[in-house]
């Protein structure tokens, strides 16, 4: 059984290395096929593990002793327990589908091979993150996915905006990772070990203050990875990468790493409910914050990106309030419907020659039937409509919030649900229905290739029917995670809540459908200051640019010129110059001029005499 762990982990790496053989050559279809095949192998292996794990059988392997320095002993170990296997299945399955999709999507791209190297490498890093049994392995995977996301966002590196976005993502992640590193240091300092088993067993023996610090710092790392406020600006800009990248990284896997961390470390976070409350509040804030920005954007992928941000907020609410299995469940369902939403957007972009402005699209439903169907299904799932998957998970989160008596959070999430429904269907209406504005701009859209549609199909199926697995999921996962049943008194209240939630979602959808069939909002709306605030993302990127980036650049320029060039370089150059000049002066010794040589002999004689006088005093 252990070999399945290794197969799951290393198959993507093999796919990546195979593709690396062809890295700089022209497109070779075999790289894509082989990489996808390896991912499928990995996915099936993960599913097999899923079927074979239960409360008594979890599998723990140790690959090798990695760090053994003094008191620090960190083996390279991997664990397949309920939580990690759910993540493994999600990651590998979604990645496999996206790999197959990319064979069609990146068809005309000249860096076809390079794409698969990076994509498979990303999956490998994510699997290390998920499967590792100690904090340091988690950190390795953390950094690995950060690196791969940089490589993938800046895939079209000759575009300045892409390079800039990649740098922004990586640097912002790095800044947050500092927090995580401090958290890991604190863990080592207090527990003496970095392995999950050891840490979680001893967690309750520490003082609340220390635990709070640990929790806060770990969460800062999670904030960076999952793009919580204030580390959120990179997610929207990361849409510069190819669409499969956005689907994989920024919907299903990398951004959920932060949530995964909170779930993994649940034994620590359960002991510090204040931090949990903070996490939940931040999550709720981000949910509404991001949803509000998605209301007014016209960029196809940015809307979906903000929706991801919003849903991450939902997951953190669940995690923060102690309902870890709910967070994991929402993570899983979200992975499926969000990724298929992105893939559908990729289809649209392909059809519209990479045009992103939804105001230039419209009425594409006739030409792109299947894409329209799939995207509508995904949007329904996102909005939380029964019987789609999102209903089960999102509704559960709202129930959790209510049962924990966090009524303000519940209200924020409820409003967020309404906004989610509205903007999702705004997107669907503006792109697929209504007036065919694209004709004005001379586009000739066509449906995507069969391969791409077939790749999207399994994900769409899960988005439709996956919600019914909630009960089985609960039974499976709570072997490891704390059982959390939202208790709402009186019992019928929970049904009323469900109705209210569904109500606002449906009303959001209906409002969007109504508004956009009748021509949408007028141009007047764009003059409202609220609109401007939202459209400029609350001016936060501008703020960051002015107050953080520009002074930093100024300081860097100063350090470079005054310190690096003037002092450091000068010192190094001075050493070289001294050597050179002394060599130059000493060259006189070999001048070939008899007179000089005699002079040197006399000098030598003087030195010898001095030595004789000093060291051999006459008696």
């Amino acid at each position, binding site marked *: 059984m252990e070999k399945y762990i290794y197969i799951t982990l290393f198959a993507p790496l093999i796919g990546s290395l195979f593709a690396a053989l062809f890295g700089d050559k022209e497109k070779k279809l075999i790289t894509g096929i082989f990489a996808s095949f390896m991912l499928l192998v990995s996915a099936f292996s993960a599913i097999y593990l899923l079927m074979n794990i239960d409360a008594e059988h979890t599998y723990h392997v140790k690959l090798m002793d990695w760090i053994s320095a003094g008191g620090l002993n960190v083996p390279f170990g991997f664990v397949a327990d309920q939580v990690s296997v759910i993540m493994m299945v999600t990651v590998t399955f979604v990645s496999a589908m996206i790999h197959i999709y990319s064979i069609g999507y990146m068809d005309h791209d000249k860096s076809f091979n390079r794409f698969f190297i990076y994509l498979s490498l990303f999956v490998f890093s994510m699997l290390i993150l998920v499967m590792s049994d100690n904090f340091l392995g988690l950190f390795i995977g953390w950094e690995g996915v950060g690196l791969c996301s940089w490589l993938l966002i800046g895939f079209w590196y000759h575009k300045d905006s892409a390079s800039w976005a990649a740098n922004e993502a990586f640097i912002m992640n790095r800044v947050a990772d500092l927090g995580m590193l401090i958290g890991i240091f604190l863990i080592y300092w207090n527990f003496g070990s970095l392995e999950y088993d050891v840490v979680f067993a001893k967690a309750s023996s520490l003082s609340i203050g220390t635990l709070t610090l640990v929790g806060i710092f770990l969460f800062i790392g999670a904030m960076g990875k999952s793009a919580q406020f204030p580390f959120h600006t990179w997610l929207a800009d990361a849409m510069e990468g190819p669409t499969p990248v956005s689907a994989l990284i920024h919907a299903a896997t990398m951004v959920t790493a932060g949530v995964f961390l909170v779930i993994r470390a649940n034994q620590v976070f359960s002991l510090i409910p204040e931090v949990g409350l903070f996490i939940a509040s931040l999550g709720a804030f981000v949910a509404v914050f991001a949803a509000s920005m998605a209301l007014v954007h016209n960029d196809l992928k940015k809307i979906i990106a903000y929706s991801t941000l919003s849903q991450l907020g939902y997951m953190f609410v669940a995690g923060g309030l102690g309902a870890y299995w709910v967070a994991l469940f929402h993570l899983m369902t979200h992975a499926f419907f969000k990724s298929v939403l992105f893939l559908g957007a990729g289809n649209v972009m392909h059809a519209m020659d990479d045009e992103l402005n939804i105001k230039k699209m419209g009425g594409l439903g006739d030409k792109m039937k299947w894409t329209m169907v799939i995207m509508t299904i995904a949007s329904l799932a996102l909005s939380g409509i029964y019987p789609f998957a999102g209903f089960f998970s999102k509704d559960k989160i709202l129930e959790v919030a209510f049962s924990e008596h966090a009524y303000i959070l519940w209200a924020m999430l409820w409003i967020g649900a309404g906004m989610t429904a509205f903007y999702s269907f705004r997107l669907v209406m503006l792109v697929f229905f209504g007036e065919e504005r694209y004709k004005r701009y001379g586009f000739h859209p066509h449906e995507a290739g069969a391969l791409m549609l077939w790749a999207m199909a399994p994900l769409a199926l899960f988005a439709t029917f996956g919600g019914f697995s909630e009960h089985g999921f609960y039974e499976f996962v709570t072997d490891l995670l704390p059982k959390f049943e939202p208790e709402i008194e009186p019992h019928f209240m929970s049904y009323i809540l469900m109705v209210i939630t569904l109500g606002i979602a449906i009303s959001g959808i209906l409002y969007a459908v109504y508004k956009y069939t009748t021509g949408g909002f007028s141009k007047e709306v764009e003059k409202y200051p609220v609109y401007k605030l939202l459209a400029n993302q609350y001016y936060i990127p501008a703020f960051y640019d002015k107050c953080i980036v520009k002074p930093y650049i100024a300081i860097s320029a100063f350090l470079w010129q005054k310190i690096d060039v003037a002092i450091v370089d000068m010192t190094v150059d001075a050493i070289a110059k001294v050597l050179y000049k002394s060599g130059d002066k000493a060259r006189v010794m070999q001048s070939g001029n008899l007179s000089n040589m005699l*002079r040197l002999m006399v000098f030598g004689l*003087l030195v010898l005499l001095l030595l*004789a*006088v000093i060291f051999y005093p006459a008696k």
Partner: protein
Amino acid sequence: MYEIIAFYLFSFLTITLFSIVVFSKNALYSMTALAGGMIFISGFFFLLDADFLGVVQIIVYSGAVMAVYAFGMIFIDTAKDVKEKIKAKRMIYSFSVAIAVLLVVIVSSPIISKNIIISTPMIEGVGNSKMVGYILFTKYLVPFELTAVMLLVAMVAGIVLVSKKMDISLSLKNDYEAKSEFEEGVAK
């Protein structure tokens, strides 16, 4: 008493003359001063009871060596002053003064130790030349012979270096043959 006067006189003169050798701009003065210095060095030897050495000094040095140097003067235009560009004069002089001082310091400190083994003792009553004779032909015979060989070698070397056309034997051919061979050699 005479020794004291003689010593100081000789030393003063020697130092002056040798200074002229070193510092003079005129090559001829230099050479002449050297010759004079040699003579006074010989005087020193006589003061030191080294009669044979003193005589040898006059014959060899002031006679032969200075004569050779005088021939060497052919190659210098003695009318002109010897032009010398010296860099860092001060450094040279300071070095030399330092060396002189150090040497003097070294030698003025009492160096006489009690354990010196005298290997070739002087026999009282025998004159210096006789003593030299005794030593030279018994103890120092081998160096003596080697010196003779060395002088021979030096002589041959000197001849070979400066003469030309050594391959024509002038004594075994009559005049006419020698001359034609010579001219052929020149024409080549």
